[in-house]
Every structure is written in structure tokens, then in C-alpha cells.
């Protein structure tokens, strides 16, 4: 493989693979921006989204693109429910940031094994008819991959525009920066929070679905994504949506590059080492 070929395939495959990641990282970082804690339970939004979509698609027999819609919406609802039932009361009780992470691990276990109890432990595959193959700069790409990439990018950038360009996004940022001041200005914190948690869950659910399409759906789906999501969010500075988008693409490309040269496991290891190095040298608030 020539270097030019290597570079080309790295970038194309890397971008294709990073699309769901970018989407997930944006959703993840939204919650961090608003509430200031790392929500490990976010993983299960992805898992549940994928399970609902695969059930509608492969078991009930709906068209893939139609089954995405209710699945993603429900994933958003789940996210709001975890916020209202668990995280908001916990924050009101003054649970510290480290304990909030542990709490979110509890939520993650509860949801993941709840999903296992409903769906069992087997793998599910999406059923997508009429996939077209075509070559793009010498690389084989399927139409599904392209559509998913397009979808993911539109939603990721849509969320970005929502936060920085709309009135609602502005109130959200005000609330994140100073809740008391925002309330004095007449912002209803619950209403804004519910919208943010819904959008975040929606993005997570879609990310789970797009990940499931290219592999399979099992209960570990979200769990396997969450560390990389966390990593992308922290590299792109947590809470920064722009950073999450750029870091998502970067992480996809680096993983692909290492994987092409060696094997997938080393891609993960390289990424984690880079991640620890970034934590160390930037001393970011994770």
C-alpha cells in the first residue's frame, strides 16, 4: 500500500466510522455543559435506541429509515426520565461530582441489564434491503454508510446550530453558566433541562443505531462506546460542542490509521494512551 493510498483510506474510513461517534459526543457533551457531570448512563441511550430500532426493523419488519424515528424519540424520552427521576433529585441533594459519576454507573447497570432481561443476550442484526455499493476514490462504500454519515453530520451540526444560534440554545448556555442568574432572568430551568436531556438522548439513540447498523446490536453496544465518547468529549474539551465534533473526526481517523497498520486492539490502546497524555498535559477538568 502506498502512502497516498494509506492516507486516503485512513481519512475516508476514519470519517465514516467517526460519524456516529461525533453524534454521540455532541449529545454527551451537551449534558456536561448543562449539569457539569459525566453521565456514564448515556451509554444506555445508545443501546436502547439500537434495540428499539432493530426490533421495529428486523422483527416487526418496518423500513430501516422509518424505524429510526420512534426509536430515537423514545431514547430521548428515556434520557429525560433518568434526569427527572434520578439525576435532578440527586443534584438537589448535593451529591458531589465523583459520586454523580458512580450514580450514573448505577443507572447504566440498571438500564443495561434491564434491557438484557427484556431482549435476552442474543445478537440482533438490522435488515436493510437494497444496498448499493460504489467506489469513491478507490474505496468501496455502501449507500447505507453514506446515508448514515449524512444523517449523523446533519444532526450533529444541527445540534451545534441549536446551541449557538437559537434563543433556546442561548437560554441553555445561560443556565449552564449561572443557574441563579438565569432564573432571575426568567428562565425556567426544568423546561430548558428537559429539552437538553431530550436532545442529548436523541443524539445518543441515533448514534447507537448507526453503530448497530455496521456491526450488530447487543447489550454491550453503548458500554463499548462510552469510553471512546468520554475520550472524544474530553479531548475536545468537555462541554464544547465544536471541540466534540473536531475531536470525534480526529479520533476516528487516528483509530483507523493504527488499525490499518496493525490490528484493531492497538487502535484502542493508542487512543487511550493519547487520552491519558492529554488529561495529564492539559490538566483539563474532565
Amino acid at each position, binding site marked *: 500500500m502506498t502512502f497516498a493510498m494509506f492516507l486516503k483510506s485512513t481519512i475516508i474510513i476514519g470519517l465514516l466510522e467517526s460519524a456516529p461517534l461525533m453524534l454521540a459526543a455532541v449529545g454527551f457533551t451537551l449534558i456536561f455543559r448543562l449539569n457539569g457531570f459525566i453521565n456514564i448512563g448515556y451509554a444506555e441511550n445508545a443501546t436502547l435506541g439500537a434495540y428499539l430500532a432493530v426490533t421495529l426493523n428486523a422483527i416487526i419488519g418496518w423500513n430501516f429509515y422509518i424505524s429510526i424515528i420512534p426509536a430515537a424519540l423514545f431514547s430521548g424520552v428515556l434520557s429525560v426520565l433518568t434526569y427527572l427521576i*434520578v439525576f435532578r433529585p440527586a443534584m438537589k441533594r448535593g*451529591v458531589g*461530582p465523583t459520586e454523580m459519576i458512580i450514580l450514573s454507573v*448505577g443507572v447504566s447497570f440498571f438500564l443495561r441489564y434491564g434491557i438484557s432481561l427484556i431482549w435476552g443476550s442474543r445478537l440482533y442484526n438490522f435488515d436493510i434491503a437494497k444496498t448499493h455499493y460504489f467506489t469513491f476514490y478507490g474505496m468501496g462504500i455502501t449507500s447505507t454508510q453514506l446515508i448514515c454519515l449524512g444523517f449523523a453530520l446533519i444532526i450533529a451540526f444541527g445540534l451545534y446550530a441549536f446551541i449557538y444560534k437559537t434563543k433556546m440554545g442561548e437560554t441553555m448556555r445561560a443556565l449552564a453558566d449561572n443557574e441563579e442568574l438565569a432564573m432571575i432572568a426568567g428562565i425556567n430551568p426544568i423546561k430548558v433541562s428537559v429539552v437538553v436531556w431530550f436532545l442529548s438522548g436523541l443524539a445518543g439513540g441515533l448514534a447507537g443505531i448507526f453503530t448497530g447498523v455496521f456491526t450488530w446490536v447487543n447489550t454491550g453496544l453503548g458500554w463499548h462506546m462510552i*469510553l471512546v465518547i468520554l475520550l472524544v468529549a474530553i479531548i475536545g474539551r468537555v462541554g464544547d460542542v465544536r471541540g466534540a465534533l473536531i475531536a470525534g473526526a480526529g479520533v476516528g481517523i487516528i483509530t483507523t490509521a493504527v488499525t490499518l497498520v496493525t490490528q484493531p*486492539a492497538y487502535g484502542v490502546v493508542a487512543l487511550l494512551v493519547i487520552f*491519558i497524555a492529554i*488529561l495529564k498535559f492539559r490538566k483539563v477538568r474532565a
Partner: protein
Amino acid sequence: MGQILSGYYIYMLSILVVYIALATILHAQFGLTGIANFGLSAIWGFGMYACALLIVKLNIPFVPAVILATILTGVISMGISRIILDLDSQSVLVGTLAFLAIIETLVISEKWLTNGVMGLGPVNYPFDIGTYTKFVYFLIILIFTIVLLFYARKLESSPPGRLFLSIQDNEPLSQSLGKSTFRRKLVFFAFTSALAGFFGAMAAPIYKYLFPKYMGPAITFTLWIALILGARKRIFGGLVGVVATIGLFDVVLETVVPIPSKYAGILYNTKYFLYGLTLILVLMFRPSGILGEKARSINTANTGKIQKMEG
């Protein structure tokens, strides 16, 4: 009787005792010092795999292998603590979790060394006295765990223990009093991690064949759930928590109550489902755990004195 002493029951009890030791180490690291170590199972697993590799690949006898594995784990932990421990607690948590993922991935991918998911072994018991081998080994581990509990108890009332509590309350204040908080934490983390490596090495013959899942994130989270449930700031918090979670599910339910193998998967899922629920409920309604929070004896003694003086 002989069958009970050599069978599955004693195997489960041995694992339970090792988990109690690990949860106590977690208490020392998190409850006492405030280090949110999410990589504990990897540190433990490192000791376990190091010991097994020394025995299986290099034919080193058991006792020196355990000692070497303990030292190696301590050295590795010193490295991790140098890199991670001076960060804030959320970064420590995420960094140790990343370390866990690195170790787990490498144990699975480096098949030439660890045999990957096929399992590494066999690691035999260091002695063979027939039916009672497993039982005697269980007693040895039990003694080490009791010693560890005594150490944890002594630690809490010793000058370094009080310093750790003060670091947790207000690190800048401790630093301003001229205490080198970072170096203390570093050495303490490496030492307690070496202990975790020691218990890992000791656990190798119990498992006989080692698999990557024995050191995976599920183990770390189970230990965390146990400690939070028990009481993170109490010496016996780990013990109570492990008995209430792993003891109840893995020992009592799986060995005493006969469950058809058809439902084994459902039981497994239910177990973690309930662990998650328990963790949520404890953190929300009783964050100090079953045992609650003990009033620190030093403080009460002082307030007593002050009250007397005022009176």
C-alpha cells in the same frame, strides 16, 4: 464434609474473601484518601496474570512468583499514580478507567503471552494435601484478609491516616501546613495497589485458569457497588457490602438454592440489574451506606474538651 471442603462451595467462599480484601483496599483508597480508582480490577488482574505468567511460562515456584508479582504491580501502580494522581478527582476516575481498558484490551489481544480469551493456566495450588488443599488455602487467604482489615483499622487512627482524611477535606490547607500531600498519596496508592496485586497473585490458583473477564470493568463496578452499599468511610464497609452483594447472589443463591441452568442467564442479568438499582437507591437515600458514617473520635474528644473549658 470432604466434598464440601474441596468443591464449588469453598471456591466461592475463597473468591468472596478475595473480593472483601479488594473492597477494603478500595475503602483505603477512596474512603480514606479520596482516590477514585476505577482501575482496581486491572491492578488486581495485573498481579494475577503476572503471577500466572511467572509460574506457567518461566516455571518459577509459587512463593517467589507471588512476591515478584506483588512488586511488579507496585512498580506499575507507582507509574500510574505519577501520571494520574495529581489531576482532579473526575480525571483520576476517567484516567484509571482508561488504564483498565488498556490492560484488558492487551490481555485479550496479546495471545502469544496471555492466551487471550482461551485462558491462561494451569496455576496449581502451591501444596497438595489431598481433600483439604482448597480448604487450607482458603484459610491462608482468610488470614491475609483479616490482617488487611487490621491494617486498615490501624491506618485510620495513625498520623498518615489522619493526614489522608485532612487531604480529602481540604488539600490546599494540608499543603499549607507543610505536608507533602502529593508524595504521600503517591506512595500510599502504590502500596495499596501492590496489596491488590498480592491478592490477585494469591487468587490465581483458586481460578486455576485465568480469563480476561476476571479483571474486566464489571469486577471494578461490582466492588464499587459493594463499598458504596456497605459504607465507603468505614473499615468494615467493604466486608458488609461484598457479603450483601456477591455473598447473597453468588454464594447463597447459586450454591444453596438450586437454580435450573435454563435460568442462569436471567439470574445473571437480574443480579446486575439489582446491583444498579441498589447503587442508585443507596447514593440517593443513604449516601453513607449501610453502616453509616462514624463520628471521628478525635473531633468528638476535642469538642468535649472545648465544652468543658467553656463550662
